[in-house]
């Protein structure tokens, strides 16, 4: 099967510091790929390059068989490439339903309309319902708990029905149980969506992903199935330390 997202030779320097060095891997449709590596490995920089918030110095990003290196971030979303951020980026002054409806309307092409078009609230309610947050639909995000905000944050790109979803630390700050539930929702909701998942909690990554990419100091050091990665000596040295550690 042809990959939905293919990275080839991505390199990025900040001054003398090389953040990414010849990074390349692919993601197939519907596949869940985990991305792990210690702090400074370049995971977030890579996210920003894939989604267009940063421009790579070299290399190319191919999405659904076209090169998208010069496509603006907002346009990449329209192509089906959605993301979250390391910290929850929600609209604190809007209700949970409105937060998600913002994405729903964009998906439906109604986001900039004044008259006509769907309000997107039905679809948003359904998503919240699925996530077990129906009772909080009319609460302002600023009045919600951290965990609830994270869930709304992750639901927003989901509402875009993307073909690839990049999740940057979606479970940070959540309890293990909350994190598991969040990932359950994600996997259940988007049977067809490919995932690129960064998480500190290695068990979560290994438990939910089909393949895992391990990075260190801007380079990919190993790509394999969770089992392969778990058993890899180099990965252990670089990152895992002891099994389950972080």
């Amino acid at each position, binding site marked *: 099967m042809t990959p939905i997202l293919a990275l080839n030779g991505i390199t990025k320097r900040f001054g003398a510091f090389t953040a990414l060095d010849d990074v390349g891997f692919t993601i197939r449709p519907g596949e869940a790929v985990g991305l792990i590596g210690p702090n400074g490995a370049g995971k977030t920089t890579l996210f920003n390059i894939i989604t267009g918030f940063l421009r790579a110095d070299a290399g190319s990003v191919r999405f659904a068989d076209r090169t998208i290196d010069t496509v603006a971030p907002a346009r990449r979303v*329209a192509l089906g490439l959605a993301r979250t951020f390391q910290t929850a980026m929600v609209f604190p002054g809007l209700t949970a339903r409105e937060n998600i409806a913002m994405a729903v309307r964009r998906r439906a092409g109604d986001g900039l309309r*004044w008259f006509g078009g769907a309000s997107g609230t039905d679809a948003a309610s359904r998503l919240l319902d699925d996530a077990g947050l129906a009772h909080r639909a009319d609460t302002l995000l600023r009045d919600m708990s951290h965990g609830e905000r994270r869930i709304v944050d992750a639901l927003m*790109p989901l509402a875009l029905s993307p073909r690839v979803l990049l999740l940057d630390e979606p479970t940070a700050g959540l309890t293990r149980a909350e994190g598991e539930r969040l990932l359950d929702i994600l996997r259940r909701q988007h049977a067809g969506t490919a995932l690129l998942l960064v998480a500190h909690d290695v068990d979560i990554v290994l438990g939910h992903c089909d393949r895992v990419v391990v990075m260190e100091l801007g380079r990919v050091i190993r790509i394999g199935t969770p089992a392969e990665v778990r058993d890899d000596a180099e990965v252990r040295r670089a990152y895992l330390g002891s099994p389950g550690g972080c």
Partner: protein
Amino acid sequence: MIRVIAAAAVVALFADDYLLRFLAEILLFGVAVMSLDILIGFGGLMSLGHAALFGGAAYAAAIVARQWGGDLVLMLGTGMATGLVLAAVMGVVVLRSGQLFLLIMTLLLAQMLWEVAFHWRDVTGGADGLRGLPALSLGPWALSGARALFLVAVPLAVVAFLVARSFIAAPIGRALVGTREEPIRMTALGYSLFAVRFRAMMVAGAMAGAAGALLPFVNQYVGPQSVHWTLSATLVIMLVIGGIGSLWGGFIGSAVYLGIQTYLSAYTDRWQLLVGLVFVLTVLLLPNGVAGGVRRWRS
């Protein structure tokens, strides 16, 4: 709404000419402040050049009126068109930058318009401005009296308010709030910040333009002060006192400001101190202005 219309009718019947004209001016300024609220309150776009849209439309209306007469429909059309054009130019230039850059860019652009108005004597009358305007008219009726002006200003204010409210409640309005609260997330959701903000700018321009078009007829004069940045700052003061983010607060703000200026300055030279104090106290104690205070007190 019925209460508003009833109140307006009572005022129109009993108030004297001076008061009616004063109220008409408050309403026109209120519409301008409301349009600024769309930018600042909902879009987070701090503009110090809003007077360019408001006053630019006033100039355009005055110039057209001297040529072809002061037909109300023609005036509103001219004003809105001018507001739209100026807002489009300003939008294209400033909306790529944010925060302080936006503040300075709007200021510089508006001051460029002021320079033009101030120096292009043949068309704008230069520093002396334009006077000797024909009366406002609607078909066969002359609308020159204070009562007629008031009766034009009230529906204009009501319609502007309804338009603004529908804009804010619509998806585009929500998107505008989104770009203020979390612009990066909006981009990540696939919204073009420019497209959202530009639409807000156009709506604000058309509204400010419609109000501005009638201003020369209230004062029977238009001069370069009406495009000067200090008027932009005054609009911001009115907005803050009235309440950022609460459309109708604009009318409160313009009433409070013009009221202080008009009724206190005969008694004390320190009226500007008072305006400053009211302004700062509003920022400190009522961050959402009088309108926000009223809302909080009600709930």
